[in-house]
């Protein structure tokens, strides 16, 4: 009779079928920045199944409690799991029914603990999370990766956004951006991502969070320009190619 090989080793546990090995349905970059009144966050509404742009109306940003906004890239089912954890957290916070409430810093810390502990069990939640919020006038913007790396900054981005959007933000972000300027800056970043990120979809939402609360915009598309002269006769320099 065939015995199960003992060579599983120390890295696997009996519940191996439960471990996250690779993501299936993923969201691409999230970009966020601090502006005068709070935080602005942008994410497209695409859910890719590998290289197929399978789902085109996925909300990748959700409000958490009264003070926070969470955006996620990576495995969408893990994002939904995280939303359930946070739902429970906020529920218990509200059940205390006292004047205290969890602010963005606390939620960010909590998420860091969750992500790091899952990573230690070799069963990560395959997400890069952006947590922004305002509480009592204090703006907060932070990021947590799937291995539990976390930090705060004036502008953050996940995935491709780190490579394409952040250089723009480093150059053009400044303290006390107006709402219009903030949106323009985010749209500039999202446009670059749309042109250059294969998993980007031209349908995005921008969310804003201020002391008054969270507003997530209706989905809309960015205008793109393809009328470059090089595109009109692409084989000009190399006859016979395509």
């Amino acid at each position, binding site marked *: 009779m065939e015995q199960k090989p003992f060579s599983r080793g120390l890295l696997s546990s009996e519940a191996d079928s439960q471990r996250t090995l690779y993501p299936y349905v993923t969201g691409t970059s999230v970009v966020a920045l601090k502006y005068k009144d709070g935080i602005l966050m942008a994410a497209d509404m695409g859910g890719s199944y590998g290289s197929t742009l399978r789902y085109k109306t996925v909300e990748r940003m959700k409000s958490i409690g009264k003070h926070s906004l969470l955006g996620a890239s990576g495995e969408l089912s893990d994002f939904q799991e995280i939303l359930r954890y946070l739902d429970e957290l906020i529920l218990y916070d509200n059940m*205390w029914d*006292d*004047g*205290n*409430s*969890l*602010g963005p*810093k*606390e939620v*960010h*810390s*909590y998420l860091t*603990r969750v992500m790091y502990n899952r990573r230690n069990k070799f069963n990560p939640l395959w997400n890069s999370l952006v947590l922004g919020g305002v509480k*009592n006038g204090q703006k907060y913007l932070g990021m947590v990766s799937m291995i539990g790396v976390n930090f705060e900054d004036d502008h953050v981005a996940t995935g491709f956004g780190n490579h394409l959007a952040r250089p723009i933000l480093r150059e053009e972000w400044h303290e006390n951006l107006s709402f219009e300027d903030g949106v323009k800056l985010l749209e500039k970043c999202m446009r670059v991502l749309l042109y250059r990120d294969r998993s980007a979809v031209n349908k995005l939402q921008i969310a804003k969070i201020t002391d008054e609360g969270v507003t997530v915009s209706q989905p809309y598309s960015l205008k793109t320009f393809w009328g470059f002269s090089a595109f009109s006769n692409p084989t000009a320099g190399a006859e016979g190619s395509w």
Partner: protein
Amino acid sequence: MFRNQYDTDVTTWSPAGRLFQVEYAMEAVKQGSAAIGLRSKTHVVLACVNKASSELSSHQKKIFKVDDHIGVAIAGLTADGRVLSRYMRNECINYSFTYESPLPVGRLVVQLADKAQVCTQRSWKRPYGVGLLVVGLDELGAHLYYNCPSGNYFEYQAFAIGSRSQAAKTYLERRFENFTDSSREDLIKDALISVRETLQGEKLKSSICTVAVVGIGEAFHILDQETVQQLIDAFEIVGEDEPPVPEVGDAEADQAEAAAPAAEEGAAPMDI
């Protein structure tokens, strides 16, 4: 008082609807040496009478720092108090680790109260024999709570527990309306005067009393003996004068609670 029949264990009600074991536990609090707390909008002060059992021994520790923003003074079985302080410290540090934020004192107090309640409903346990004056800060400002062995907790503007605390309460009842806007120094002065009231004639020295302060921008800390002695000297030189009580029309709901302890002596304590 004829109440010996139903007091054998904590899970037995008396016909009058009382749990005698819990009430006996509250007696233990009354036997402990006095602890006093007062708060303003921004600061809270704790003061305790610290009598050593003999000249040769050291004083019992009655004030514990729980976190940078929370402290507790105990009266009653100090051993029980120590165990509960450790629980409180643990809760605070776990919360800080997970949320990188200080645990709101109001929530800690509820957790403490629930822990005490468990001991009033298990036949194999006994109630904690210690009363806790919990002071701390949260989003809404400075707070002073009293946690009872019964599992009840109350918020106060000022309160005193332990032996001869009634004398302190009388003094506090006269002055509490001004505490909200008191300065830190005045608050400490009032605390020391209250301690002196409980000493009933004995001279107030820093060797027999401990004072601790917490406030907005000021972490919880116990004042050292020298500082306390200086403060005592400062106001004793001025004399026993009490500055005239200005008419401040404060209508805070929790001020009514400062008067509540006076009612405690007669009726069953849990009726409050």
